[in-house]
């Protein structure tokens, strides 16, 4: 799973509706995989990304490349878009877990695939 997708996830356990984002990454193994740069896609996603959460998540993973605040000209700042691309589209989480900051539910990630299945009482 790429970091862009992690940034779009929140806990979906029944009744867990507040403080359920971002899911905290723990014990993760990361892998860099090259992908073709697509500026238009990045611009599309700029409006959707929760930037502060992205930066905080990255810092915990020792990824220190993103500026602390999003540049005012982000959509047309080539240098920034390059970094953003590398971080959110080329960084894959291969294994580990995502822990909900609110209810502590653990979503296990194996072979890059998070298990989002819930137990009956969590639905």
């Amino acid at each position, binding site marked *: *799973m*790429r970091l*862009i*997708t992690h940034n*779009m*996830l*929140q*806990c*979906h356990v029944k009744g867990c509706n507040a403080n359920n*984002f971002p899911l905290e990454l723990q014990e993760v193994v990361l892998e860099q*995989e*090259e*992908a*073709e*740069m*697509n*500026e*238009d*896609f990045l611009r*599309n*996603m700029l409006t*959707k990304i*929760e930037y502060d959460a992205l930066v905080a998540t990255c810092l915990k993973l020792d990824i220190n490349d993103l500026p602390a605040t999003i540049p005012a000209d982000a959509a047309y700042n080539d240098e920034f878009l390059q970094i953003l691309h590398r971080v959110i*589209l080329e960084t894959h989480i*291969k294994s580990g877990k995502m822990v909900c900051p609110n209810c502590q539910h653990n979503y296990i990630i194996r*072979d*890059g*695939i*998070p*298990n*989002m*299945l*819930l137990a*009956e009482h969590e*639905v």
Partner: protein
Amino acid sequence: MSRPEHQAPPEIVYGGDEAAKYTGNSRIAAIQAEMAGRAVELLNLPEGYPGFILDVGCGSGLSGEVLEEEGHVWVGFDIAPAMLEVALEQEASGDLFLQDAGQGMAFRPGTFDGCISISVLQWLCNADKTSHHPKARLMRFFSTLYSSLRRGARAIFQFYPENDDQVQLIMGCAVRCGFEGGLVVDYPNSKKAKKFYLCLFAGQEVNGVKQQLPAGLGEDEEGEPGENGVQYTSKKRNDSRIRSGKRKPGKDKNWVLKKKEQLRAKGDKTANDSKFTARKRRPKF
């Protein structure tokens, strides 16, 4: 032949060897790709717009491959681990999740520019466990899907409805969750080619233009498609590959460069060519 969803739960029907058999069957692959192509067309995204798209019941990634070819970034989930395993082997380009549609989704509001789902929805009308109530599962699915779509985005479901009641049940739930839209039937007069696409709009207004339910293909045609020259209407894609059931060999660098040249010629923006152009995205693991 009885319907697969009546035989066993999906993770069993698409379990073990079945997942590989399903994916390796070139006839199935061609049909799924054709339906995925039609679903992407029905999403009605602006030409050349690279969207973030959800594939519900993505299976082994046959439908995702079409999304990728159309230039979209996709995320898919499926309830059958064996199908996801095949997707990994096939180096599917999308992010994958193990997830049950009936339990709803965990995406933040407005995440996706569209959703497609190919040959899955009928499964949700089943109660595979005593705790399963199809209506409750459909409601949870559609309500979380609705919120995960940006306003005006579409969700297109190709599916095999069992009867009218099932269509009513599905449509009723979708509408109660805020969706508008309806059923598009392609080639309604053909036994073989008739296909159902549930076309849902997450909000009506796109740039102030009211969304209209698209017309089905071959509505005025009698019998099988093609006979009267009615063709798939997509201008974006060349469907001969899918129609003939032949799968195209992987896209090499020349293919990508040519495609990008075409886009530039049309005046569309495309990324500069670089050493990453057309490079394989995922190493085998």
